[in-house]
């Protein structure tokens, strides 16, 4: 990536044009306004239609999930014997209700909240784990790298969904949104560790790392102040894509009976997998939750792609 921030130093060496204010320093008339790397990336993202539409879509879904309940005021847990399986548009049930008379609209709102909770728990666990393990392996190399990466390889021989099923089947008490987030987090860092390691392997050979070494910087400082900020692009892209994967995985686990399956626990994945059973009899229970899940995952994926393009514009053949 090229940077345009050299303007200030270059400009002061070249004599100013005649007529320029004396001592004015840099002539900016024909220059490009200096932007930092970060400003450029944010600017590129803001100009990216795909990424921005994802962001708007996600914002709408979050508003729906968190502000919606304040407006409608219905509680999903409320069971109404008088209104079991009513179709959408019925009095007081905008999106209909399920077999035990719970409002689907309230359920969707709560489901969006729970989904966010799952993603949050997942990230809190997986992100630091993957970062630290990948960083250690990539930075120190040799036996640290060999040990940690063989460990990762070991777990990766088994498909992730299967690892999750085997683990989840052993802990029935984790069939809540938090519990599923925990399990996802404990096994979701493996690919991040690989990505970070790969980045570190190339980055640690760069001149600025050598310079930091020569200046006496500690390993900790080099990792956290020099290497991680430079690997940030791949890390952020992983965060978005992994969040989307986590949402889908939660729904799949729940569908197979190893996810959010406790009596009172709800999640978007649970609404979707319950709805599949009712696809032909009560189609609203099938379409609306599936649609909501689709929109959230779609939004996150779009944001991820926008961020990737912002960090690495070489993919698009049009100048950004």
């Amino acid at each position, binding site marked *: 990536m090229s940077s345009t921030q050299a303007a200030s130093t270059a400009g002061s060496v070249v004599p100013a044009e005649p007529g320029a204010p004396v001592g004015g320093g840099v002539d900016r008339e024909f220059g490009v306004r200096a932007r930092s790397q970060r400003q450029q990336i944010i600017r590129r993202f803001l100009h990216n239609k795909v990424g921005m539409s994802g962001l708007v879509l996600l914002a709408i879904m979050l508003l729906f999930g968190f502000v919606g309940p304040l407006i409608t005021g219905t509680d999903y847990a409320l069971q109404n014997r008088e209104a079991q399986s009513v179709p959408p548009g019925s009095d007081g049930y905008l999106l209909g209700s399920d077999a035990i008379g719970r409002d689907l609209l309230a359920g969707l709102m709560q489901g969006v909240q729970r989904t966010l909770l799952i993603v949050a728990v997942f990230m809190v666990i997986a992100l630091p784990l993957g970062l630290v393990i990948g960083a250690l392996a990539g930075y120190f190399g040799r036996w640290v790298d060999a040990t940690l990466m063989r460990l990762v390889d*070991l777990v990766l021989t088994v498909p992730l969904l*299967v690892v999750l099923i085997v683990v989840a089947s052993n802990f029935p008490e984790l069939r809540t949104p938090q519990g599923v987030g925990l399990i996802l987090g404990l096994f979701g860092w493996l690919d991040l560790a690989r990505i970070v390691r790969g980045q570190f392997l190339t980055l640690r050979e760069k001149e600025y790392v050598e310079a930091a070494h020569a200046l006496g910087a500690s390993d900790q400082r080099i990792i956290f102040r020099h290497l991680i900020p430079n690997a940030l692009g791949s890390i952020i892209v992983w965060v978005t894509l992994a969040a989307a994967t986590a949402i889908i995985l939660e729904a799949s686990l729940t569908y197979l009976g190893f996810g959010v399956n406790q009596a009172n626990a709800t999640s978007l994945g649970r609404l979707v997998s319950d709805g*599949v059973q009712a*696809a032909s009899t009560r189609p609203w229970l*099938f379409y609306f939750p599936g649609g909501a899940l689709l929109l959230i995952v779609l939004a996150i994926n779009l944001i991820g792609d926008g961020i990737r393009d912002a960090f690495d514009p070489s993919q698009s053949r049009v100048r950004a």
Partner: protein
Amino acid sequence: MLFFAIRRLLGAVLVLVGSSFLVFALCAASFDPLSKYYTLQPRPPESFFANMREELGLNDNFFLRYWNWLSGVLTGDFGETINGTPVADQLFARLGVTSRLIAAAVIIAVILAIIVGVIGAVRQYKPSDYTFTFLAYLLIALPTFWFAALLKEFIAVGLNDAFGRQVFFTLGEETAALGLYADGWELWSDRLAHLILPTISLALLSFAAWSRFQRAAMLDVLGSDYMRLARAKGLTYRRTVVKHGLRNALIPLTTVVALGIGTLFGGAIITEQVFVWNGMGRYLLEDGIGDNDINVVLGWLLVSAVFVVVFNLIADLLYAVLDPRIRLS
């Protein structure tokens, strides 16, 4: 290249032993194969449980149990299920069912991914590119089981009604017990009719992600200097794209597909569950985890892990074939 393959396979054996040990430890700690007898009324006498434990070897030391399993596997014996049937026979039958499901799906998905990916790259930012991109995004964001249910409910049921007879089957890998008396065309046409929907579902979902890879790889290649040189030499556009571009752009896809096939063999678990195909995935879920059967889980793990390892190796070897600059050492 031969030495490379041999070294990789030797390393893989170690990984397989390691992961089977991990899974064994996890299962041994929590599985109780006798749990289904506890709730029987009247409860069987204590001597029954003692006998069962002795028979299944549950009283043995943890490491001894693992060693018994491992030494059995080395001689081709995958042990028995808790119901006393050999695991190896069942595994192969299940593997056959899963291969049928995957083979067609992967072939369709790869062809579609290459076509759509190349079109998307060559006609970047044109309406066709946008359409395919949007479609791919939609498919990637869909949970498998939801999409499969959609196909089942609305395509299959609708078409069956339109034809007035059962064209698509939504459950099972073949009509129950047909294999006992029918063979030849009758059996295989029945299997084909059962195959269509799961294949469509699996193929479309795999194709979506792969087409994005193919498009990205193709874009990368289209911008490179040797493409410009090929055009400057006077080759037609079509020829440069197909001969010079596509061949190089296939390399990233090979890895992704090879890795994907390896994982799929472990069971397109969800697809099998939705369409009630008795393949590897349902074997793990129902017979393995459902019955708390360690031998089934371990046998399943070994077979699917072997496929992951083998297809990883194939990906590396194909890499060297497609790109002569890559040397395996």
